[in-house]
């Protein structure tokens, strides 16, 4: 914040930085930003919640994100996502009960020519198939037991 001279108009930049540092926003963090910038908490929360990029919950140990851009959708990413949901008992946007994996839906990651794309812990699987993705997730989890439904 000091870097931006506590400038109110740099709120979005400051939120970016905080998000990068902590990975998600909680109430204390947003309240702190609001008090230092002398902005009402409602304003800070309002801006933070407006933008899709910011998360408000601690993500799981492993993060899976499915691209829901047009190209990926046309090429059947929906089926893969439902399969992940069934297999690992998670809902899109949430984490598994044991907190080991999270499943997020992202807007286009821009690798449309390789659609559909699923990202697992930062690694992109292009031209993904249901089988390959499930296999990969099982491997990432190290064969650990995931609560079955």
């Amino acid at each position, binding site marked *: 914040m000091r870097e931006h001279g506590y400038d*109110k*108009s*740099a*709120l*979005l*930049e400051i*939120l*970016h930085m905080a998000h990068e540092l902590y990975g998600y926003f909680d109430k204390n963090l947003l309240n702190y930003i609001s008090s230092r910038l002398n902005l009402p908490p409602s304003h800070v929360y*309002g*801006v933070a919640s*407006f*933008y*899709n*990029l*910011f998360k408000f919950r601690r993500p799981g140990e492993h993060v899976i994100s499915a691209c*829901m*851009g*047009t*190209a*990926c*959708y*046309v*090429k059947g990413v929906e089926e893969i996502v439902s399969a992940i949901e069934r297999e690992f008992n998670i809902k899109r946007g949430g984490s598994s009960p044991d907190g080991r994996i999270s499943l997020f839906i*992202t*807007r*286009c*990651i*821009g*690798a*449309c*020519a*390789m*659609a559909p*794309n699923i990202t697992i812990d930062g*690694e*992109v699987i*292009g031209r993904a198939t249901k089988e390959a993705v499930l296999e990969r997730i099982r491997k990432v989890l190290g064969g650990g037991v995931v609560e079955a439904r």
Partner: protein
Amino acid sequence: MKPDDILRVAEREAEKQRAYKSRINVCCSSGCLPFGALQVLKAFESAIKEYGLEGECKVSRTGCIGTCSVGPVALIEPGGFLYQNITPENAKEIVKRHIISGEPVKELLYANEAFFKKQYRLVLRNAGRIDPLRIEEYIMVGGYSALIKCLTKMTPKEVIDEVIASGLRGRGGAGFPTGQKWNFVAREKATPKYVIANLDEGDPGVFANRTLAEADPHAIIEGMTIAAYAVGAEKGYIYVRAEYPLAVQTLREALKQAKSMNLVGENILETQFNFDIELRMGAGAFVAGEETGILASIEGRRATPRPRPPYPATSGLWGKPTLIQNVETLANVPLIILNGGNWFAKIGTPKCTGTKCFSLTGKVNNPGLIEVPMGITLREIVFEIGGGVPAGRKFKAVLVGGPSGGCLPESALDLPIDYESLTKAGAIMGSGGIVVIDDESCMVDTAWFFTDFCVDESCGKCVPCRVGLLKMRNILERIMRGEGRLEDLDLLQELGEYVRDVSLCGLGQTAPNPILTTLRYFRDEYIAHIVDKKCPAGKCFRLEAEI
């Protein structure tokens, strides 16, 4: 630095490049990176070292070459040999056979000439040919000479006249004449004035602007600086999506280099002209790409649009005159200044000059990034450049213009691409996304997908968009569940037209397009869902299960 110093940089760089007999350009753009482009780059470098060819062959990291579906790719000059699906192992093979023995490795070459044949690369002139992270290479190929020409030989008015003569129109979607916009801002008296380069490419399935920023960031910066000189602005912002980390990083580095060479900043090229550029990141809001939404976002607020007038040209950032242009528009500007407006006006159609970049994706054989002259038909794009839909499937529709574009059927394929024809057919130019849909997709489901996107991205400020879109989505869901009624079609039509006509901003005004165009061209599919309770593509499974 003075203009002469820049020319010397170009000469020095050219001399350095001439020392190399050949050059391997490895695409390290977002399309190829996830598939191992950096490993390929390293493999080329170590192979060159291993064979002791460092003095003869230059391995360079470049931007997108366009054939994103066969990445990682590399271009070998001279000769323009394009290699596809490279792995670190066959990179060494290529060095051995192509660079040393001089025999191209035929089985790895990209053989599809049709992909490039009808393209006209103007904006993407340097994409895949220069290293975007080295300003010297951009200067070597004539970069920043347009800026020098403006600052030393032209008045701001002459610059604007040249742009007006070129007939260039905004590439962000609406197609407003660029020169005229510059005129509006230039004649405002209030100061300071601002220039914003819009790189908030929020449409899913579109990556043309991102690719441009990754491949040739200096073209954007140069165009922006020329625009600032023409309208009298002192401060500029490049607003870029945070989801494009590589574009952000490339632009940041490019700005640093431009500043160090005195091409951006105070007393540019030792003239009286000052212009500083700052990078601002979005955070995933589709509506922030809207003119007034972007203003709110840069000011650090929720990106909710506001009514116009007043237009940003009179009252933009912090109430000051502001010029907002898409980055693709700006990248055209240096060419117009160097070659003249009349030269540019000869490309494309009389009313719609120049070229347009499209990201071609979906069910098509050669997806990728293309640039075509205006006036080309959709058929040429889908079937010649794109190579048609994969074998065994049938072409059904093509979606032009992102989630708020329109789905056009086979019968509309002979339309020439220009702003007016597309709008008349119910689509929009948008930011340049073309998604091909085959008979595996259900049009009702497709319309639902886009409407759902727009419901999610609606900022919630004005009622028609906030409530109308939600209602439309609910009706679609009802139809997909097999509970639709025939009256629903008229209701959708009525609601769609209403939302289109009375929404505040571009998002609401174009969001009904997918529904309206599918109703217009694919009505039989809706009827099949409602009357026969059947989904022709077998997509709406909840309904199939009921039968």
